[in-house]
């Protein structure tokens, strides 16, 4: 290695002028990204953000304290980066060694100088013209290990890019995009493997979670979210409906290194609304699955919405924490679900600890002691339509919540919206939409759709405070140890709130909503920065240097 570097310098002709002394003075590049760094999560020095949720627990809670409720109103923009592409950010940027690594819409990606917002390299994937990817040509971020970045693509590939140049190192095919498969989530890198899943629950896919060797791109294992013949749970699908039952995986999960378990929320069963063809619970759709990181074998599952008929994917972000409940130390996973319920589960075995609505739920008022929702009558979509709360987008969705281990509060952007759901019998045609219905937001003088940032106590499920928005927000969150929460409303405002009270401290009109994106925060040249993806822009904020 040493010899290679020396030769490189000699050949570069630079050493001719400057001599060997200078060679030693060049600042050593940082070592390659190690697994330990990812395990360590967000360090107090604020020097990095290396995985989707900041850490494997997905807490998105920064230990940084330079920015406080007292000084947050002094934030000023440092720079703005424009994508120059069609479509909006849904990404979580990564930061290392003062360089940002960012994925954008249409599988464009960048390395950006965090000091100035200037591009270092740009990658653009040539996408096939007949792409059928549902729900936006988006991407939710990079994973990283060694000298490689990992990115999923809209044509259902997993790419490894050279961190220094953006060049492709390897290109693995997940599935055939022509059959309705796509991939949009940020890869999770665990023990030398890159964990990814597929979207396409509206296209009759059979969902799966895959693990690929980070070095070579070879597949290590695959877990199908719909059990095949002979496997437990297969009999929860009538006929051959399991073959195109959906249950995609399009939001990054969590990982517990001690238990060596991955936690992923799964998508809706298909067809979404007309369910005569798929009688049964439809495992493991709308579930949280706990998967052995080494083998890909399922350890346990908890199904939030058995036999879902409202398109309530459980593709929200699972958040891990250790809590004391009734005097007992519990390893839990917290989950605010699209179906309107907040859940605290025991993450060692999947047993329900508590479940409570965090928005108005008309389809079920409670979860029974056996862990199943107690269904209310009259909430089955048909051709005439039926009104159910929450709506199709749900009580919350894929935008990340946060958890503050100091105050032991779970924060989530919630929506209070109801919808008229319709269903009709669909025909399956490979690669085409396969939903069997539709939903429409209910509007009228007595039904207002609002949103709110809610602080939930995960031990009781009670709401501690809320900050109400004019209309339902789809922004993700960031919280800090100094008692700040950054959020966005549905009207393009970036907001900073006091996480202990929910009081608004500061705002700025970004000109676009932070749809599905959370800010990240880090230290750069001694100042705490907040980086905000909104629409087609990334903006870095900091308090001016004295």
């Amino acid at each position, binding site marked *: 290695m040493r010899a290679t570097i020396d030769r*490189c310098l000699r050949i*570069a002709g*630079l050493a001719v002028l400057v001599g060997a002394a200078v060679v030693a003075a*060049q*600042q*050593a590049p940082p070592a390659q990204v190690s697994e330990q760094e990812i395990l360590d999560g967000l360090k107090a020095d604020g020097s990095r953000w290396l995985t989707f949720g900041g850490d494997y627990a997905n807490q998105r809670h920064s230990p940084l304290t330079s920015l406080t409720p007292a000084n947050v109103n002094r934030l000023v923009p440092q720079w703005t980066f424009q994508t120059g592409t069609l479509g909006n950010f849904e990404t979580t940027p990564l930061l290392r060694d003062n*360089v940002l690594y960012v994925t954008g819409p249409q599988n464009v990606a960048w390395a950006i100088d965090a000091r100035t917002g200037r591009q270092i390299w740009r990658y653009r994937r040539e996408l096939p013209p007949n792409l059928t990817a549902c729900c936006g040509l988006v991407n939710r971020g990079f994973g990283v290990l060694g000298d490689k970045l990992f990115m999923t693509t809209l044509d259902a590939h997993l790419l490894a890019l050279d961190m220094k140049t953006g060049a492709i190192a390897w290109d693995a095919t997940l599935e055939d995009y022509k059959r309705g498969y796509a991939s949009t989530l940020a890869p999770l890198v665990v023990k030398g493997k890159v964990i990814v899943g597929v979207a396409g629950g509206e296209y009759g896919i059979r969902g799966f979670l895959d693990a690929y060797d980070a070095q070579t791109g070879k597949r290590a294992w695959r877990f199908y979210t719909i059990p095949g013949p002979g496997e437990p749970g297969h009999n929860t699908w009538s006929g051959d409906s399991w073959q195109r039952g959906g249950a995609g995986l399009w939001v990054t999960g969590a990982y517990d290194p001690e238990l060596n378990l991955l936690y992923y929320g799964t998508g809706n069963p298909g067809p979404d609304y007309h369910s005569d063809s798929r009688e049964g619970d439809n495992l493991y759709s709308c579930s949280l699955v706990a998967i052995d990181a080494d083998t890909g074998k399922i350890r346990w599952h908890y199904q939030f919405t058995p036999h879902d008929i409202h398109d309530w994917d459980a593709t929200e972000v699972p958040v891990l924490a250790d809590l004391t409940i009734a005097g007992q130390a519990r390893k839990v996973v917290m989950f605010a679900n699209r179906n309107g319920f907040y859940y605290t589960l025991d993450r060692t075995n999947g047993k329900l600890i508590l479940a409570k609505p965090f928005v108005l739920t008309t389809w079920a008022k409670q979860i029974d002691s056996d862990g199943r929702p107690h269904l209310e009558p009259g909430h089955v979509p048909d051709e005439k339509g039926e009104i159910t709360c929450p709506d199709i987008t749900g009580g919350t969705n894929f935008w990340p919540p946060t958890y503050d281990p100091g105050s032991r509060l779970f924060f989530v952007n919630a929506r209070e919206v109801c919808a008229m759901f319709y269903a009709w019998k669909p025909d399956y045609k490979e690669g085409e939409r396969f939903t069997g219905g539709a939903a429409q937001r209910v509007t009228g003088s007595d039904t207002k759709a609002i949103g709110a940032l809610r602080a939930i106590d995960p031990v009781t499920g009670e709401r501690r405070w809320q900050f109400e928005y004019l209309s339902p927000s789809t922004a993700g969150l960031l919280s800090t140890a100094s008692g700040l929460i950054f959020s966005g409303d549905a009207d393009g405002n970036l907001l900073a709130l006091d996480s202990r009270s929910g009081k608004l401290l500061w705002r700025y009109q970004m000109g676009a909503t932070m749809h599905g994106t959370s800010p990240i925060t880090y230290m750069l040249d001694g100042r705490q920065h907040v980086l905000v993806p909104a629409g087609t822009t990334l903006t870095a904020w900091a308090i001016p240097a004295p």
Partner: protein
Amino acid sequence: MPRRSLTRAVPIVAVVFGVGASLLAAQGAPAKNPLEGDPAAIKAGMGIFRARCADCHGVDARGVRGPDISRVWAEGRTDSGLFQTLRTGVPNTEMPSVGARTSDVEVWQILAYVRTLAAPGPADPPRGNAENGERVFRANCASCHRVNGKGGRLGPDLSRIGAARARDAIVNRIVGAAEGSRPGYEPVTVTPPDGQPIHGVKKNEDLFSVQIMDSRERIQGYEKDKMKAVQDDKKSAMPPFGSDRLSQSDLDDVVRYLQGLRGFDPAVKQ
């Protein structure tokens, strides 16, 4: 050279003369350029080529940051294939599609013009031993240049160089007869206020900052007002390999090796 091609193209003019617009509008690209040799089309194509293609391919089509395209016919490409390339672009490269707003007639006009710049097939038989060339490359070049995912990153990736550059262009670059560096590889020295100069290649720059890859491959941005100096270097980061460093036969060998590099397939075979 271009003149010779032009005269060679003249007989074909007679063949296609009189091809009407109705044919051009027909579905699917004809096998041969219906406008080849048409003086008006060549003139129109020259305008489009210079405005939209020459930045990368050079006014003489011999390649700047994009490939040398003067030899595409000599290498066996067909008119209809090239038409398709212009229509769709080249995946995973900087070569974009001409776009939907560019008409089929305009695409043929571009090709009619490029045809006038076309070089004949290589007169000399290929020479050199690619196997030894690869050894020479590994010993002298690979610490800065990457091929198929292996090697340094300070210089351009050469995995496609055989498709992108003609032989004489490759030779000129190696022996130091070619001037300048392509964007992204211009040499620069940044001197921090309290440190030794940092040498590298420039990835981006504006009035206030510069983004570089230094000679140890660290990518990093620097604010100019916080540096003692930021200076463009005159000498390319690539040293000349004259006859004192590379024998004629080693040069032939390494060029032969490079000519065989036609692209990197990163697809993982499961």
